């Protein structure tokens, strides 16, 4: 199942006036969970909304479940579920009323009450949309995306602004969808979300995919760790690098703060401390960390990824 392609985007370009939101983006999403990761304004939403059929590409092609989202919209729409970043519900509609309505538009919908219960919305079914909390509104939108039993679900920042508990409930549901053979494309600017959920990650910045792969591949197999230490500013990094095994990296991130990347094992730690001793450096605050997607992103773009 994992080899099946659910979304294929080739050379997508989308401009709004003079601003280019998506700039020659290529993306292949296999069945499973694909996270599209990037900072605000990177082009995530534009890309996803093009896949959902909302926007016509200025150039390039988009295929979702093998269909053109604009020209073959009527064939595609029953097969996908869509969660918009916000809104989508009549402000005067009650939560259960709206979900029941979306269910009625599908041939074989999920049981509405069970789904409400599952997402912790059981107690607020009679509440009108505008009186729901932000988190409840998010979960209702998620429920609306899955109630029609789609093959593929698009979630645009499904946990933005949620408290940790609601976030976990959303993650659990996404994992359940995957286990039942539903594919999920989600956009997020949370690194941990991508690491926790995704089979594949595409990192996008300035309208292009700048890296893609499984979270492990992106973090170079997980064996790749980071060793950090502090010392006096201006150490000879080139000399340190020479002392290290060939595939390691070393850099002074900020004055006096150093990072060594590579397969961090006791031997490497010994090499670094020996080098420090030889150069009369007292390495302080030595720490070993797993290389995270956050580091990958920082390396690729020089930017912090934050909401």
């Amino acid at each position, binding site marked *: 199942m994992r080899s099946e392609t659910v979304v294929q985007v080739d050379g997508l370009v989308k401009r709004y006036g003079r601003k280019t939101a998506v700039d020659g983006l290529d993306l292949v999403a296999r069945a499973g969970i694909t996270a599209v990761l990037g900072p605000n304004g990177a082009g995530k939403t534009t890309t996803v909304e093009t896949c959902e059929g909302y926007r016509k590409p200025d150039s390039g092609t988009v295929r979702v479940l093998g269909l053109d989202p604009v020209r073959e919209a009527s064939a595609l729409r029953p097969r996908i579920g869509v969660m918009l970043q916000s809104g989508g519900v009549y402000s*005067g509609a009650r939560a259960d009323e709206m979900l029941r309505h979306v269910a009625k538009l599908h041939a074989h919908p999920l049981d509405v009450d069970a789904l409400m219960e599952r997402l912790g919305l059981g107690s607020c079914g009679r509440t009108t949309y505008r009186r729901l909390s932000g988190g409840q509104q998010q979960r209702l939108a998620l429920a609306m995306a899955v109630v029609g039993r789609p093959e593929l679900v698009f979630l645009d920042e499904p946990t933005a602004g949620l408290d940790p508990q609601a976030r976990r409930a959303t993650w659990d549901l996404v994992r359940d969808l995957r286990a039942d053979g539903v594919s999920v494309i989600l956009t997020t600017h949370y690194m941990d979300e991508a690491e926790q959920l995704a089979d594949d990650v595409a990192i996008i910045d300035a309208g292009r995919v700048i890296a893609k792969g499984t979270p492990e591949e992106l973090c170079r197999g997980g064996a790749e760790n980071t060793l950090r230490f502090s010392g006096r500013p201006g150490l000879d990094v080139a000399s340190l690098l020479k002392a290290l095994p060939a595939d390691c990296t070393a850099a002074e991130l900020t004055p006096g703060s150093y990072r060594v990347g590579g397969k961090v094992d006791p031997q490497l730690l010994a090499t670094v401390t020996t080098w420090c001793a030889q150069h009369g450096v007292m390495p302080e605050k030595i720490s070993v960390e797993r290389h995270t997607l956050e580091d990958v992103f920082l390396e690729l773009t020089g930017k912090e990824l934050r909401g």
Partner: protein
Amino acid sequence: MTAGTDARTTGEGTGEGTGMYAPRPGAAPLPRMIAAQAALETKMLLRNGEQLLLTVIIPTLLLVLFSAVDIVDTGEGKAVDFLAPGILALAVMSTAFTGQAIATGFERRYGVLKRLAASPLPRWGLMTAKTLSVLVTEVLQVLLVTAIALALGWSPEGNPLAVLLLLVLGTAAFSGLGLLMAGTLKAEATLAAANLVFLLLLVGGGVIVPLDKFPDAAQDLLGLLPISALSEGLRDVLQHGAGMPWGNLGILAVWAVVGLAAAGKFFRWE
């Protein structure tokens, strides 16, 4: 369905699906989708206080007030015979134009139209449902206004088919204009403009004030408004027992074609 709930809550990492979410996509039959959409839209409208004020309370109050109190000179005959056709026209305008413009404007603003556009319900199906919802509301309004007018001593005349034709063309004309406004302006601007237009047309469209109270030059112009064509057309038939009011039907038809075509061309879904 409930049996799987407990097993699922701790399902992290097991990779074992419960089958609850197993894909089984498909659109509901089109008539069922449209009926569901029309029912929901009607419910939203009847639940909204401001909409009820516009579509039910104001027309009813005006009918009762102006029939009972001699404020406006309505010409020969009973006041209610003059007023009832005008109030019917007002009811059509309040639902098809003002109410529909405001509701649709906010649906657009809150992403409802956008979300529904990704559902199996096609866009034309959504518009059909909106029209059905408007028609259902109008039937309720006509029943209410007729009942009150009859209680006030109204004695309608004329050809019911001509009345029906006027109401349908009036609905089409006002829907086109309402959707044009909702699909191009911001929600707040639509709210303000739709209410203002409602008020102006109420006064200047022959609803409660006869058009011949206005200067001659203004009369000709006002007579071309869709509200005047509808109220005068209904009055010709219901008060004076005229046959088909072709002139007024023609004016409404032109408004309907122009309004719906413009709405179709300029309507923005988000």
